[in-house]
């Protein structure tokens, strides 16, 4: 079905198709349309929407709902994303599937509420305290927002990891044509649940499986969930040996299964001797710039991480060994640039064009910078 939607609306359409049946959150620009549309649509499909008293309770209620077996989501922007951090760590340690949307706006603090920014990419990775696994996906269009929201739910269910859908004011508010597929064309992953009668170790992994099976609260398996380090039975344990086992297993999720999780787009990179690296809303300018630069005779390609965390490290590393340089462009002061420098590891120069003032970097600005640095 062809529709004309905003990115934020496409996110809700994707979430519903993925099976979202619970939304809890607190309004904040530029993410509010996600809450509004969820409030309208969820009760019509038997789902629940609740506007909580703040973002902390927004994510807490979503975790509670997920434990009863419902697919749950919460959405926010910068200041609210900061408030959610403690419970993101809770979901990571207690392995509660959950989708958190952050429609990024400009600046720290209240910053620039109605302008785009990409300053939360490192917070998305390391915002909560302690080492923890996280998956973070970032779309560059309305259609991709729809599909990545579905993917976010699927990955959350499959790996029992909180998944952050990191969009921005550009993709969140822009309207585009989108062809919404029939649900039958969409692959949906549902968490594995224990079978009745099983001896249930809520944090023990069955042989050949990826993560522990997850019982719904109320389904007859009375178990304990805690944010303390716990053993396979789910109860707190102070043993360092046990903590090591648990942390190793959690941290391995996004490493062992990285090929299944990692996603990126490589455009004209095969013959490229320069790369422009951009992601999310910014890659729209980058894509346009690359096309113009190609017409002008530059052999330049676009590398666009779609999963920011885990980062498409191996693919970028292979290219970094071949190209003369990489121009990173992002709406911050160089957060992903650091990651690119780490991966390039001195094999090629890493140039940078960033903004943190709510301004969008235009294709013209990028072309100019490129022609300066790639001389």
């Amino acid at each position, binding site marked *: 079905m062809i529709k004309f939607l905003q990115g934020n609306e496409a996110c809700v359409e994707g979430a519903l198709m993925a099976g979202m049946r619970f939304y809890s959150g607190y309004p904040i620009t530029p993410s509010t349309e996600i809450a509004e549309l969820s409030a309208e649509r969820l009760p019509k499909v038997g789902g*629940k929407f609740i506007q909580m008293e703040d973002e902390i309770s927004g994510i807490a209620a979503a975790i509670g*709902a997920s434990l009863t077996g419902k697919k749950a989501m919460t959405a926010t922007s910068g200041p609210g994303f900061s408030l959610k951090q403690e419970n993101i760590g809770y979901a990571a340690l207690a392995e509660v599937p959950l989708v958190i949307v952050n429609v990024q706006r400009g600046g720290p603090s209240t910053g620039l509420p109605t302008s785009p920014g990409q300053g939360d990419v490192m917070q998305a990775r390391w915002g909560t305290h302690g080492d923890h696994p996280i998956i973070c996906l970032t779309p560059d269009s309305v259609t991709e927002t729809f599909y990545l929201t579905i993917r976010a739910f699927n990955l959350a269910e499959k790996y029992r990891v909180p998944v952050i859908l990191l969009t921005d004011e550009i993709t969140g508010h822009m309207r585009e044509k989108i062809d919404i597929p029939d649900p039958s064309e969409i692959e949906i992953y549902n968490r594995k649940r224990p079978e009745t009668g099983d001896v249930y170790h809520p944090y023990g992994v069955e042989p050949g499986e990826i993560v522990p099976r997850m019982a719904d609260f109320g389904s007859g398996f009375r178990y304990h969930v805690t*944010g303390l380090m716990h053993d396979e039975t789910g109860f707190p344990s102070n043993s360092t040996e046990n903590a090591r086992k648990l942390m190793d297993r959690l941290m391995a999720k996004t490493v062992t299964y990285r090929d299944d999780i990692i996603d990126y787009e490589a455009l004209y990179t095969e013959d490229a001797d320069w790369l422009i690296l951009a992601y999310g809303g910014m890659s729209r300018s980058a894509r346009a710039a690359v096309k113009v630069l190609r017409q002008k005779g530059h052999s330049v390609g676009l590398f666009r991480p779609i999963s920011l965390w885990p980062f498409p490290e191996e693919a970028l590393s292979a290219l970094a060994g071949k190209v003369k340089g990489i121009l990173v462009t992002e709406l911050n002061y160089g957060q992903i640039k650091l990651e690119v420098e780490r991966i390039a590891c001195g094999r090629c120069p890493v140039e940078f064009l960033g903004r943190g003032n709510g301004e969008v970097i235009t294709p013209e600005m990028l072309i100019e910078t490129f022609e300066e640095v790639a001389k």
Partner: protein
Amino acid sequence: MNHPLAESYFRMDKLPHIWCPGCSHGIIMASIARAIDRLGLDKDNVCIVSGIGCSSRAPGYMDFNTLHTTHGRALAFATGVKLANPKLEVIVISGDGDLSAIGGNHLIHAARRNIGLTTICFNNNIYGMTGGQYSPTTPTGDKATTAPYGNIDKPFDITKLAIGAGATYAAKVTAFHVTQMDKYIESAIAHKGFSLVEAIAVCPTYYGRKNRKGSAVEMMTWLKDHYIDFKVAEKLPPEKREGKELMGEFINVDAPEYTALYDALIDRLKD
């Protein structure tokens, strides 16, 4: 031989608990189990949610669906559990700090919504787990590790706070008055709507020691001598009421419950 109630409702392999000798948290926890037993609830349909604190360790010992969350957020997690599955009987265990300091916002909003959660506040007037700092219920003038010269803050009356915010059931009781406690917790769980039982507890280790309140037995005796039912107090001459603290069932009214309203909304949208 173990007590049959313990066998039925507790995870015997997780006991003994971590609480200090003389701590009254165990008394309140046992009262919750007796209330559940008398109501004949199916254990599979009971979910106990707590925050962080000595009191919040209780769910780990109790044989239900149990959720030990982050500091102050028990009611917020519980709201999600209850709204997502209203069939569950959701009971929240929370300390005075957990519930009325860091979690105060969630308390007033859960009460305002009249969502069918039962909150049992283990109010020992102190932060036990972190070693005796003052809480929003530490009486003015009392000492705590962070109030070495006496507390200048004014305390909350958590029961009144919940009533003011819209709780449709609220009772206050002490760890000494166990018969009343059993009755109030039973009524609170049976109540449709937001209910709160504030159980005044003793922390001999920190609050008691800092304020020279004597042994656990002396602290319990103080509760016995000072708390009277507000209905009894109403009939007393003023000189006999002096220095007394009031307890009892302060409110018990019917009002539409939040998850039932939401389910009605879903039904309405069907046609």
